């Protein structure tokens, strides 16, 4: 199935497309994760998975609680990321963790819907915010 011709042809066209894209100057900032700090990415994934498990467990307890003790909150806060990519990673991480959804995102402003007041309170200057800013540390 993986005959040498197919593999070589695949590698060859990938290189050709990359060179063409470079020459045409269509590689934009967002398609360029190499501009992110690699070490921060490696430590970010396990940390995010831990956060997801913890908050999923919190939401699970809320759902199964007989009185459903939720306190839905809309909160606006100021994220510290400078680049679009950092903002996207931060907003997607917020939405990925159960209990918080990023609704509006723009530089310097984020609108988040949280399932509880506690969840909303921890967003400004959070560890996630700090880590996402670390991701974009190596900007030119």
């Amino acid at each position, binding site marked *: 199935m993986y005959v040498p011709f197919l593999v070589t042809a695949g590698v060859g066209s990938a290189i050709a497309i990359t060179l063409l894209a470079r020459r045409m100057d269509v590689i934009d900032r967002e398609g360029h994760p190499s501009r992110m700090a690699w070490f921060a990415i490696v430590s970010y994934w396990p940390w995010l998975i831990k956060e*997801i498990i913890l908050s999923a467990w919190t*939401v699970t307890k*809320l*759902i199964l609680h007989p009185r459903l003790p939720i306190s*839905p909150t*809309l909160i606006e806060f100021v994220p510290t990321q400078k680049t679009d990519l950092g903002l996207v990673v931060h*907003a997607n991480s917020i939405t990925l963790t159960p209990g918080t959804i990023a609704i509006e995102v723009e530089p310097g402003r984020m609108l988040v819907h949280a399932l509880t007041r506690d969840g909303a309170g921890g967003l400004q200057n959070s560890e996630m915010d700090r880590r996402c800013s670390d991701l974009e540390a190596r900007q030119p």
Partner: protein
Amino acid sequence: MSEALNVLSGLCLVAGSFFSLVGAFGLIRMPDFYTRMHAASVTDTLGAGLILLGLMLQAGLTLVTVKLIMVGLLIFVASPTASHALARAALLRGVSPRLADQGEPSSKP
């Protein structure tokens, strides 16, 4: 495949199914649109993640596992993007969230 791996994979599958059911239960139980989305995200993350992990343990070091990892990465990027788009669309179209601080809304949404 060793027995221990089999048991571990079974535990992951059962736990993943449990969290998927909890998400579905929350989807029915929550009071409004936005809080229902929070319940659904338990299914998206922990439910799907544990089931994928259990399947990976079943498959071992094969091409199937590589495909499962790709499915997992796709879910972890696509599902928050879809949730964000859905919540934003709802807010822009005037679905007002039922908030804790302002008490019960006077009119039905």
